């Protein structure tokens, strides 16, 4: 099979042909043949993705945690994952200790969101001096994001809340993002699949001729120069706090600048128009699946290797009528051990898992090198709250899917010592995408037994 044909096959899921920059992931086959590099070297060269899927309001743990360690039976909530069972690792006993109140009173939904990928106890404020910590995905994006057109991709299903307070005493900035670029800046997420598509592939208009494209890039550079000059001279006039706000602007502009430079090196790519979504579906399941398509497409085309995906915002009171549940999710999560409410909660949990199964199966169907896209990915799925009624942030429901480019031994349930920081898992994942970090948030080391 010629390389060209292999790449076409690899793209078949898209529905139409598109030519892409040659994936580094395809290189090792040739590289190995040439130099017979060790398996260790292969690990480094194979692209490894990290993705974090977040669900709100806790989990019905009784039907989540497998009863046995090692090889395990799928608990009721996870049953929809049967086709990817051997690609899963269920991790029990992990905690985000800093999501607990620790003297700050209510606001567990906001805290569980802002702490989930940071492991930092955020400052309680309704607005002034927002302070959290950098999240694992952004740390990775800052160090290895330059390998792809988009350092990272943040998507979700629900927009941030538009009025009132999101959670007692916490600004909504804490509740709408799990991804944090710095300790003061949460990263906005895109909730419209069409806009994600357009961001990744352009708006689908016919390709410009090379000359006019070059001209456009020249113009864009001149505009970037202009605004950076403006920002630099403005910065000198501002006090420190305002300068910090302006720094957010600088970061964004520089990212566009860098992307422009990267794009120049790339060959032209055709847009898979048939995959373009038309908007936001009413049905929450369809919405999640369509968004999954976009993320998978981005990973498949190697436009990014890092992504966060919020299936809903924490504290979300959405009702899942599509599965016959008309009460709000948050309202139900305060079940007070009422079996009727608990039944509905576990159905919502299973509904979310069903959507995850769709995404994982899709990734598994996409061949890449000698394996699949799923083999070369690490997908964390979980919640920042364990029991929605108690709002506890230990014994979190955490699932790790994918083979991590040969760095994870899957098909197991591992029980860790109580209150092991979830961030230990993140450190272990950072290793596997080539990011050196000694600590992150409240980490105490690297999570072991994963391989």
């Amino acid at each position, binding site marked *: 099979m010629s390389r060209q044909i292999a790449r076409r096959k690899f793209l078949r899921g898209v529905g139409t042909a598109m030519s892409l920059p040659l994936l580094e992931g395809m290189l090792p086959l040739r590289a190995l043949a040439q130099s017979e590099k060790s398996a260790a070297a292969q690990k480094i060269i194979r692209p490894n993705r990290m993705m974090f899927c977040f669900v709100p309001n806790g989990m019905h743990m009784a039907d989540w945690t497998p009863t046995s360690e090692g090889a395990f039976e799928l608990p009721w909530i996870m049953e929809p994952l049967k086709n990817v069972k051997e690609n899963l690792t269920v991790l029990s006993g992990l905690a985000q200790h800093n999501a607990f109140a*620790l*003297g*700050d*009173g*209510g*606001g*567990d939904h906001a805290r569980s969101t802002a702490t989930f990928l940071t492991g930092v106890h955020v*400052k309680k*404020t309704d*607005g*002034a*001096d*927002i302070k959290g910590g950098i999240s694992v995905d952004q740390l990775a994006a800052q160090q290895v994001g330059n390998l792809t057109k988009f350092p990272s991709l*943040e998507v979700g299903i629900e927009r*941030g*809340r*538009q*009025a*009132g*307070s*999101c959670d007692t005493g916490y*600004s*909504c900035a804490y509740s*709408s993002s799990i991804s944090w*670029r710095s300790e*003061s*800046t*949460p990263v*906005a997420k*895109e909730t*419209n699949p069409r806009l994600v598509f357009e961001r990744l592939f352009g708006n689908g208009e016919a390709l410009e001729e090379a000359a006019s494209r070059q*001209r456009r890039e020249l113009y864009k550079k*001149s*505009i970037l120069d*202009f*605004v950076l*000059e*403006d*920002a630099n001279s*403005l910065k000198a*006039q*501002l*006090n420190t*706090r*305002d300068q*910090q*706000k*302006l720094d*957010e*602007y600088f*970061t*964004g*502009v520089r990212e*566009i600048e860098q992307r422009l430079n990267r794009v120049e090196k790339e060959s032209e790519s055709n847009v898979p128009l048939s995959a373009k979504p038309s908007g936001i579906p009413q049905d929450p399941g369809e919405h999640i699946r369509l968004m999954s398509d976009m993320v998978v497409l981005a990973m498949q085309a190697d436009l990014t290797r890092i992504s966060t995906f919020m299936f809903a915002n924490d504290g979300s009171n959405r*009702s899942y*009528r599509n599965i016959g549940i*008309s009460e*709000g999710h948050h309202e139900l999560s305060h079940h007070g*051990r009422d079996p009727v409410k608990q039944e509905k909660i576990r159905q919502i949990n299973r509904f979310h898992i069903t959507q995850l199964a769709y995404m994982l199966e899709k990734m598994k169907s996409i061949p890449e090198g000698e394996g699949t896209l799923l083999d070369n990915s690490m997908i964390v799925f979980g919640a920042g709250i364990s029991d929605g*009624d108690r709002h506890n942030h230990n014994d979190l429901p955490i699932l790790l899917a994918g083979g991590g480019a040969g760095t994870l031994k899957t098909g197991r349930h591992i029980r860790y010592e109580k209150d092991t920081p979830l961030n230990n898992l993140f450190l272990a994942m950072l290793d596997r995408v080539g990011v050196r970090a000694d600590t992150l948030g409240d980490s105490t080391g690297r999570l072991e037994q994963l391989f």
Partner: protein
Amino acid sequence: MKRSLTLLQEPKSPKWLPAIGAIVLGSGLFSGVALYAAAPEKARYVPLKPSPTTKPASANPASGAVKIAPKTTSLPAKPIAAKPNFERDVAPMVKQYCLSCHSGADAAAGLALDDLKAAGVLKDRHVWELVAQNVESGHMPPKNKPAPTRVQRDRLVEWIQGTLTAVDCQIKDPGQVTLHRLNRAEYNNTIRDLVGVDFKPAADFPSDDVGYGFDNIGDVLSISPLLIEKYFNAAEQITEKAIVLPDVKTVRFNADKLEGNDDNGGDGGNVLLGVTGSTAAVDYDFAKDGNYLLRVRAFGQQFGNEPVRMSLQLDGKELRLVDVTAVEKEPQNFEETITVKAGKHKLTAVYTNNYKVVDAPDPKDRGDRNLLIEHFEIKGPLGEPQLPESHRRLIFQKPTAENSEATARVILRAFARRAFRRPVLDAEVERMVRPVNLAQKQGESFERGIQLAMQAILTSPHFLFRVETNPKNAKADPKYGGEKIGLVDDYQLASRLSYFLWSSMPDEELFDCAARGTLKDPVVLEKQVRRMLKDEKAQALADNFASQWLTLRNLDTAAPDPDYFPDFNEDLRTAMRQETSLFFQAIVREDRSIMDFLDADFTYLNEPLAKHYGIAGVSGSEFRRVVFDALQAKQRGGLLTQASVLTVTSNPTRTSPVKRGKWVLETILGTPPPPPPPNVPELVEAKKEAAATFTTVRQRLQEHRKNPACASCHARMDPIGFGLENYDATGAWRTLDGKAPLDASGTLTSGESFRGPTQLKSILKAKKNEFAMALSAKLLTYALGRGLEARDKCVVQDIAKSLTKNDYRFSALVVAVAQSDPFRKRRSNEGKVQ
């Protein structure tokens, strides 16, 4: 902790302050205290308790049914008359309850309170605020220690707050507003007013985060790379919509691109039309409406006694019938001006007079007449392009070849002044001209260059942020600890005003005031406020302030269960939103009393909503003002009875008295309940089973209140919600809760009892000062784009006072906010992170 110490070392206590106490600080103070309570480093604005001089809300004389209930709780129904006093109320209590732990070198949390003599309250304001918070919330003293009574606690807190407020009223620190980027609504409106294209480019921007209940808070409005990307894309779209490029093009369709119905085929690059009715045609997608020149190049193979004839047709209709006298090698151009609408049109050449003789005896008489077409050309649009209004406004001067750069300067200076909302410097204009030159060097038009320059302006931080610099006229006053306070620059004030009232940029009149430097004059300011409130752009107050003040933006995601509420649909949702918006706008426009928010004899309805309310005689989807008759007035009137408010405070399947009560406490009375305990204790199983047998929400909540951890707050929230139980979860009137008879009575912790919504409203209407304070605080937060701090209480009091003096008119509220120190002034603390 360095920062805390800095704060505490300054400013020097002014002499006029009573020396009331000193607090010895340990190094771990703030972290230590934070362990006990939610203690933000900067004290949050906590609305004042009704001042002792306020008459306690008593029975409305007009409503005989309202009575004061006997005091049954430990909460004070009425403040003790005398003002709290340090010697009597503070010092002994601190000594008795605090010093056993908080004293000496090893004081708990590093907080020693034993040296109570030397310094002023201002110096230690943050410590005092922490003491007040911890004592008020009950976190201190700890559970196993002797504790003061509720009344003692309140006296201490009242003293601390009163003393601090008195100090603040002297100092009038305007606080600081963080560099504020335009939020989505502001971006849309600004583009509308600046460029003249109203297509809401920010609709696809990521949501703006909310802080202090609003989405225009400088501290919270962050910029992510995604947003920057959207800014660049939006700027491109905006300028391309606003400015039309000269685009007269000529498109040629050679023979191989022409469609024919004749199989005779081409002949050396021509299309041969051989029989009558043969055609050559092109389907062309015209980009714009306008005139175009159609040019057909053709010749004939002549035969017989008339020339070749060709009919030129547009969409099958003949434009002209022409004689094609030309012969091969000397083709002729046939031109026709056509007028078309944008879109696809078919242009056709039809051969109309074939003549052929094959069987004449004399070969000279034999022959064949044919039409041959070389190509079609379409040129256009012709003449002056149809320029949109925005184009003529932005490019108000035409460049000539010699002066295009000078023209660009004039155009861009004018645009940038409005975009940056201030005069621009020559050096800035010079840089703006660069993209224009660049485009022209690339062989593109002047207009294209202006588009690019405007894209640069629209992505500049000077446009995207409301930049404020430290006031030039600022003076350092020892009272502020060396920090300078001064009036903000007039242009910046113009922006503060326009973004407050219009959520948009200033108009020319405001710019004029700013240029003359008169806006800082309170009289001019008031005149402008009144003018602006009358402008239709003031609808922004309803769209952006009211919708968030009343939490109505959550209506978008409210999801009443169709099984319970089959009548709820999207039309009704829209109508609910519209009712409250129109009601709010009426109060602004007619400058009515803010008390009308609580009760009014009118509202705005359309047919679906009127049906929902059971009000007859309203038909059609148009909204109109409806004045209630006596019967209707028993059910409706004021915000609390509007379906929008009632729906956002409900659960999908049922009402929530808790949410409604909380909403009233927060929105109307400005006394939000404290957050629930972090880990809601699980109810005992036995009680749980009992709970399952309860039929009404009221019974369930009564059970809940048996838990002392829940009781104190729910006793404040639930009764208010009960008073609104006559409205179901979508705001429709009802008299039964399921099958149980409905009980809409309740007793507030302040003692008043009521039965039904009308009596509840009477009680709330009597709490004029609370409502005035609550609304003033919300409007000030929105106007400033920052959270209020403890020291802003004084300002809020002043605004509320001004309302009282002016019959509670809405305009008085807005004028007072605009004239307040925090709105007009700015504190510069250079290089210091506050």
